[in-house]
């Protein structure tokens, strides 16, 4: 066991440099190129997965958008609201199939997604799941709709008003139930209710027609269809295509301004909630999150690496154990609590007012560079401290651990035996080799920072990507979620690539070229 190789390579600085450049040359370059090419399918899978997740998530953005202001006024005007809803879904492209093709079973139908009301879609999907014969189910739904409208349209008088209310309620229930027991009971109710008043003959007939349609579903059930897989082709008229490539013309002038250009042509769509182009919303948040992230990473590494090394050197001493305890204490208190405490005690005239409690300052374009810089630094100081302290424990612990592993290695013992001073042993020989775990962590830092910034940005009212992503998820703002995920994905991929390259630079034993 004699990894002498390492010693000779890093022992002399000149030689080390040469090796470094040698490594960066062809095999590594080829490797990077290969990795970047692999980005494309990875990003494709990520976008597709996000699409699937979004469409599986409960909640309907169109419904959320409409219901926000429906607490007063004439919103109960059923037809008007339904029209608004249908139109909105169409505008947002929610009535399209999700992808070019779908792996489903033969029972599924491609027209189901066009049914506007989400509850109804779910009920119908259940029926399809249970009975597998879409034509009959579609017919049943049609009958049920007719029944509902005839009930609404029937003129009320003193004899039929009670019956009509009951009928309406029961029909409303039929729309959301799929279990046979419940439905049979509901149909019995409907028949009784329609018999209550003499002038409901028409409705009674419709109830019977609906029930027949329902029993037809059962009698002509084709459950086997569920077990036969099917590839359903939807063509380019689908949500994914619309998002990725857009519907606008590729060549020549587009006449219809309402059509989008798609993600790969740099059109990220319009946010559902703010109705702004996603691009400008994201740019607003991106620079500040990137700035904070980079500063935080720098601060964390500058402090944690020397700290970890010093702990490793004095392993077992009082300094080691005392520092360890202190670091674990900081780790144990969540950022949201420390942040609140900092605001409460360090920004308030009741205690010490050193830092501002919110925002990024109010420097404007006209202000000089130094004022702008000072203002921003003044506002970011506390958030940066809060954001970075939590990782000290983890990072320095990793650094300490890997340093100890390296210091125990044979070649270090050899170096010591040769009489090299301890300082030299550590910085020249051990340091580079102990960086591996820290580099591994580096890769996952970018995405973690974007996710983790949610709380920080909330506490200090910093309008960054974290806030934007969180709001988008809560508001079901699909274009925002998609674009944010794509940005996060690209950053993550770059982070991984950088960390893999750093591996090779730091540890010459790792090679990406074929042997």
């Amino acid at each position, binding site marked *: *066991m004699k*990894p002498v190789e390492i010693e000779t390579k890093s022992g002399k600085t000149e030689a080390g440099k040469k090796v470094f450049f040698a490594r960066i040359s062809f095999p590594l370059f080829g490797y990077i190129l290969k990795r970047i090419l692999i980005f494309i*399918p*990875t990003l494709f*899978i*990520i976008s597709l*997965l996000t699409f699937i*997740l979004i469409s*599986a*998530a*409960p909640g309907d953005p169109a419904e959320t958008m409409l219901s926000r202001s429906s607490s007063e006024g004439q919103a109960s005007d059923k037809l008007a609201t339904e029209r608004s809803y249908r139109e909105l879904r169409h505008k947002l492209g929610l009535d399209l199939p999700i992808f070019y093709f779908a*792996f489903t*079973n033969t029972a599924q139908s491609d027209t189901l997604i066009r049914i506007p009301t989400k509850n109804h879609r779910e009920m119908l999907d*259940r029926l399809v799941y249970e009975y597998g014969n879409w034509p009959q189910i579609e017919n049943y739904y049609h009958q049920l709709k007719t029944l509902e409208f005839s009930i609404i349209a029937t003129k009320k008088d003193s004899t039929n008003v009670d019956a009509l209310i009951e009928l309406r309620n029961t029909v409303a229930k039929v729309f959301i139930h799929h279990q046979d027991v419940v439905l049979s009971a509901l149909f019995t109710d409907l028949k009784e209710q329609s018999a209550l008043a003499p002038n409901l003959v028409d409705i009674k007939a419709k109830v019977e027609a609906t029930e027949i349609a329902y029993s037809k579903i059962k009698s002509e059930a084709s459950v086997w269809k*569920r*077990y036969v*897989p099917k590839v359903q082709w939807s063509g380019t008229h689908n949500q994914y295509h619309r998002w990725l490539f857009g519907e606008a013309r590729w060549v020549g002038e587009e006449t219809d301004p309402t059509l989008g250009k798609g993600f790969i042509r740099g059109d990220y769509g319009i946010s559902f909630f703010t109705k702004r182009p996603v691009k400008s919303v994201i740019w607003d948040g991106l620079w500040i999150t990137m700035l904070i992230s980079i500063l935080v990473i720098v601060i964390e590494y500058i402090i944690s690496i020397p700290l970890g090394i010093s702990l490793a050197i004095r392993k077992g001493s009082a300094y080691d154990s005392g520092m*360890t305890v202190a670091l*674990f*204490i900081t*780790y*144990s*208190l*969540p950022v*949201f*609590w420390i942040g*609140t405490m900092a605001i409460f*005690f360090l920004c308030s005239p009741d205690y010490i007012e050193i830092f501002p409690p919110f925002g990024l300052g109010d420097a404007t374009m006209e202000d000089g560079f130094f004022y702008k810089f000072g203002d921003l630094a003044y506002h970011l100081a506390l958030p940066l401290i809060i954001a970075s302290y939590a990782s000290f*424990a983890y990072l320095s*612990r*990793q650094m300490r*651990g*890997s340093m100890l*592993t390296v210091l*125990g290695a*044979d070649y270090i013992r050899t170096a010591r035996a040769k009489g090299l001073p301890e300082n030299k042993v550590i910085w020249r020989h051990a340091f580079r080799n102990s960086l*591996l*775990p820290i580099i591994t*962590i580096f*890769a*996952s830092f970018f*995405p973690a920072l*974007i*996710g983790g910034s*949610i709380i920080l940005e909330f506490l200090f009212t910093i309008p960054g990507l974290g806030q934007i*992503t969180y709001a988008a*998820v*809560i508001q079901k703002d699909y274009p925002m*979620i998609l674009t944010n*995920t794509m940005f*996060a*994905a690209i950053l*993550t*991929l770059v982070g*991984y690539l950088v960390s893999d390259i750093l*591996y090779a630079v730091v540890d010459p*034993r*790792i*090679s990406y070229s*074929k042997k």
Partner: protein
Amino acid sequence: MAADTVREKNDQGYWAFVWKQFRRKKTAVISLYIVILLAVIAVLAPFLANEKPLVCKYQGELYFPVLKEISVGFGIGEFQRQFQNIDWKKLDYDMVIFPPVPYLPMNQDDGNIHSKGPFDEQVVPSMRFHHWFGTDELGRDVLAGMIHGTKIAMTVGIFSMFIASVIGILLGSLAGFYGDENFQVSLVRLWGNLLFLFFAFFYAFGVRSYDITDALGKSLGDGFFQLFISVLIFAGVITLGNLLVIPLKKIPFLGKQVAVPFDLVIMRIIEVLNSIPTLFLILLIISIVRKPNLYVIMGIIGLTGWTGIARFIRAELLKVRSLEYIEAANSLGYSHAHILFRHAIPNALSPVLISIAFGIAGAILTESTLSFLGLGPADTVTWGQLLSYARQIPQAWWLAIFPGFAIFVTVTTFNLIGDGLTDAMDPRLKQ
């Protein structure tokens, strides 16, 4: 034959040796005891903090209400008529012994609402009923919450990290060990498996989607049962597929050996998983299962938290793979598993154990962040939830210090145990 028995003996000796080394380290052993103590607290929580008396004599008869409660919980007992839905503190006992903390976490002490501290003036009948760790906004006893929260914290932390470690070590080892070229199968098996993966997914989950979600909505047990059935179907289809492949292998073209790019695929999985915001995943899954309970949260943390561990193992294996002792081990004819567990993993142990130890505390903190966002379970008291209460009331230090200290103890002890294990398993120590 002889070599095998030697190896086995070696293995036994190895673990005994590790244990011996571990015992030498005092801090690690103390930490182990603390973890055991926490486990005991978790198990005995109903006896430590409860509104019901441990023992009482009521109207001339002796009762053991806490034991009774536990038996009712297991469905083997029934509450006595006179004790159904009563306020246990208001009964007129002949003799009574309350648990050390005479409150349940959800008991609301109307006299001490709006977060009374341990040193604040509290409205209690006697010091016996003092809230030693204070109360929260609803007047609930913090100490009782801490005790009952121990179980939740331990299960959340350990269970989620267990899932993460298993997946992480498995996939990380595959990626690092076999790389892109070292695992060879026949062409037909490779493509066959991809095809059957699709069919397995279709029949196990696609066809049964509503069965599973319905069962999950009904109860966790039903849900797991249905999931188990799906997993069986999945395994069945895959096995069937692999059996079908065997005769086809004889065809020369299909039988050609190709490499499975494990590293490539697993690294892409990690990238994809890390690119989708965890919060989005959590929101989504919580909303699908409708009732955000702790098992779901554990599952999510476990299923998303393995990537770091996998990358550590892979990174270490990349380094170790080319080392001479692996080559030596190879030439000695040791199995892959042996190389993996005796040489590669012990080398990667330090970063992995640290990240597991931090992960356990991290899971507890994640649960608390979920509470902060309002997505945690509402009617169980957890350490994390206490912390998120503390944020809203900066003056109420007792809501932060105690759970904070508990998390500190957890993270420290697990770290120290990890340290001890790293040292004990250090392959160099053996010489």
